[in-house]
């Protein structure tokens, strides 16, 4: 049941990204280009998404658990640290170069444009680099605590 719900939610999400214009890098960079001929339309995407999801998520959290699972899975960290902010800066620079973020990039893979596939493969490599780096520092910590 849960994979089926994920398929439905993913489809709705992908349709929303496409309908709203988020899958077109030209539209995204037009929105980010505040010094040029700024196109503020995409601000309404986030505003509309939050106008619905913010009250809905607050309502959901009044229930002890989700309908189809035993608990909510939300990040436990609360500290705003350098790792969070530096990661956000790097992501923002990449978003500003190509006009693609992960959701729209994956959704528009379906168009079969080679450059989008190139972006997604590079994204996976970037994630792998970070993953390896974190595992190495975790191993180093473990080794340190054993000695």
């Amino acid at each position, binding site marked *: 049941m849960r994979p089926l719900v994920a398929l*439905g939610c993913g489809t709705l999400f992908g*349709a929303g990204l496409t309908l709203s214009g988020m*899958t077109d890098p030209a539209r995204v960079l037009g929105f980010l280009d505040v010094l040029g001929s700024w196109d503020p339309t995409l601000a309404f995407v986030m505003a509309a998404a939050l106008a619905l999801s913010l009250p809905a998520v607050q309502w959901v959290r009044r229930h002890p658990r989700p309908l189809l699972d035993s608990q909510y899975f939300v990040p436990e960290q609360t500290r705003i640290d350098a790792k969070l902010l530096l990661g956000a800066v*790097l992501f923002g620079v990449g978003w500003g170069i190509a006009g693609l973020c992960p959701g729209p990039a*994956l959704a528009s*893979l379906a168009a079969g444009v080679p450059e989008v596939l190139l972006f997604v493969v590079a994204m996976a490599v970037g994630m792998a680099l970070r*993953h390896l780096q974190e595992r190495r520092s975790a191993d180093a910590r473990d080794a340190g605590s054993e000695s």
Partner: protein
Amino acid sequence: MLDFGLLSAVFGGLMIGAAAALFFWLNGRIAGISGIFGDLLFDRRSGHWPWRLTFLAGLLLGYLAIRAWRPELGEINLQSGPVGMIVAGLLVGYGTRMGNGCTSGHGICGIARLSPRSFAATGTFMLAAILTVALLRHSGVFA
């Protein structure tokens, strides 16, 4: 008078918000795309790959459904060449993994949960993206 671009932005946004809220209500999980994609690649042992795979497959289906309805909405006007796409992809992948999220996980789901970390991350990546576009298009260094 209502402009189609504005209407589609609002309705598209409502669909994104509804998808994130439904996913949290039913499955109890955050619809953060970079997290779902990254965990699908690197978290092999937990047995969570089926829903991650179907969620991401849904993204592609959603794109195809809208494009079938109105082909012009499926347009992808690339803004950088292959080298730009590789550099951008590496930064997006590494950065979202380091910062625990992207536009969906922090910008929509995190803010909807009123998470201070997500407010900070969203403000930071928006600003970084705006400055990057300003630098690339208006500084005269790259033009």
